[in-house]
């Protein structure tokens, strides 16, 4: 799937994403306060917490849309803190924002081609697009249609497909379950698990931000719980799901 990563240093494949002491604020309001999170290759790390806990800000700060006030973002050991968003994307981070980020005025195929632009030749691109169409047959049927004609589930397929086409080392997903029927959520999450477990996708680190903590923990390896911009718990997904006190206090299930 990835071509652009071939030129990256070898350690980039093994060390994933590491966030150290990250702080960010919107004016006087502190949104992140010294957050440590890591996303290791071949694992899904779920970031959980209530509305306003700082989950979305965490992803936006990692991908360069929000400037941190302190702390570091390391990508494969390389410091990318304060790099512009487009450079962080080029360094191998694919961020699928909340509300999905489908560019609705473009066609399905044009959205996918944008994803594939990061370092592939035209011939490779054709092959990669076909792979995505095989993975998501509904997209193949609608490739020439404008993206605003897609359903919520199809849009989620489109943005995940588009993110994969950029050959990322790190995939940041913000609330992929938002507004989707439970059956579709299960389908998308199942696919995500397959992608990470697939040997070809072994390098992929996934940071999954979710309000739907129960579903997220069911596919995640590790869970991180945020509250008011701070990390209040880090543990294996199974341990978090079994911790009644934590679940009631922060996760709402």
């Amino acid at each position, binding site marked *: 799937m990835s071509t652009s990563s071939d030129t990256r240093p070898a350690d980039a494949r093994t060390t994933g994403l590491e966030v150290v002491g990250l702080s960010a604020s919107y004016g006087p309001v502190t949104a992140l306060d010294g957050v440590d999170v890591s996303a290791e290759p071949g694992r899904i790390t779920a970031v959980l917490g209530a509305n306003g806990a700082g989950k979305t800000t965490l992803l936006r700060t990692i991908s360069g849309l929000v400037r941190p006030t302190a702390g570091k973002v390391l990508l494969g050991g390389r410091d990318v803190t304060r790099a512009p968003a487009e450079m962080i994307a080029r360094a191998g981070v694919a961020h699928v*924002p909340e509300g999905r980020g489908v560019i609705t005025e473009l066609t399905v195929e*044009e959205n996918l081609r944008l994803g594939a632009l990061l370092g592939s030749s035209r011939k490779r691109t054709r092959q990669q697009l076909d792979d995505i169409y095989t993975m998501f047959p509904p997209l193949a049927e609608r490739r020439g249609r404008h993206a605003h004609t897609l359903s919520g589930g199809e849009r989620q397929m489109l943005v995940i497909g588009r993110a994969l086409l950029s050959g990322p080392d790190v995939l940041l997903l913000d609330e992929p379950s938002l507004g989707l029927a439970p059956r579709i959520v299960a389908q998308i999450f199942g696919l995500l698990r397959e992608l990470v477990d697939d040997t070809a996708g072994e390098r992929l680190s996934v940071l999954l931000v979710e309000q739907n903590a129960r579903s997220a923990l069911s596919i995640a390896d590790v869970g991180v719980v945020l509250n008011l911009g701070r990390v209040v718990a880090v543990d294996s997904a199974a341990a978090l799901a079994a911790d009644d006190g934590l679940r009631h206090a922060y996760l709402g299930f």
Partner: protein
Amino acid sequence: MQQFLNVTLTGLAQGAVYAAIALALVLIWRSTRIVNFAQGAMAMFTTYIALALIEAGQSYWVGLLVALVSGLVLGALVERVVVRRVEGGPELNAVIVTLGLFVGFQALAAILFGSTFVSFPAPFDLRGFTVGGVNIAFTPNSIFVIVAVIVVMLALVALFRFTNLGLQMRASAFSQEMSRLLGVRVGALLTLGWALAAVVGSLAGVLIAGGNLVSPNYMDAVVVYGFVAAVLGGLESPGGAVVGGLTIGLLLSYVSGYLGSELVALASLVILVAVLLVRPQGLFSHAAARRV
């Protein structure tokens, strides 16, 4: 009948130029949500550069080429040096800045090139064709004007439809943030967008100058008609800008031919008000669909 034919053909040639100006305005509006009030003044300035070369003994074609290249450079410089500071800020700031550029370019042109009327040569014959013994108002130069505008439009369509660069430009026009997350260098593309718009504007400037008199404010009326055309087309749609330009060219030509040329400016105002009252999103805009 002969007058109708004359008026229609003249309107088409004028409309092609308005379409080019409208297209320049649309290119900038789509990517930066700024109406570039300095578009006409920038085109005037590069037209004067062409005129200076032609008067120094160079051919019309060298002048045209240099005007287009200086448009490219001027558009990029204006975006990078001046407009970049007000992009994404309050809309009024951008309005004031482009109005300031408009005044500044006109003043600079008056200082450098003088403020009197000077004549600009036309590359082709300005005498009308003779059809069946009757002389019509359509000239070889009109054909050149229309063909030049069509060629530039087809080149732009090809750029936007069939190249990765054009795809990235469209993506950044629709969603800057998502484009950046996909690794698109939005900042560089905004500069390129302004540069291309200024090239199209420069072409319109030289075309409308051909066979006419130019002065530092000769583009003022043209850019107003171009703006009306862009609004008619919806400000968003390059295709709409072209149709809008041709429509305005024809309508104003009919007004001039049948009602009197002194009513042309008034008519363009009436059209503008009518469009804004009846269909403020323009004839070809997706704006209504996007608000959903």
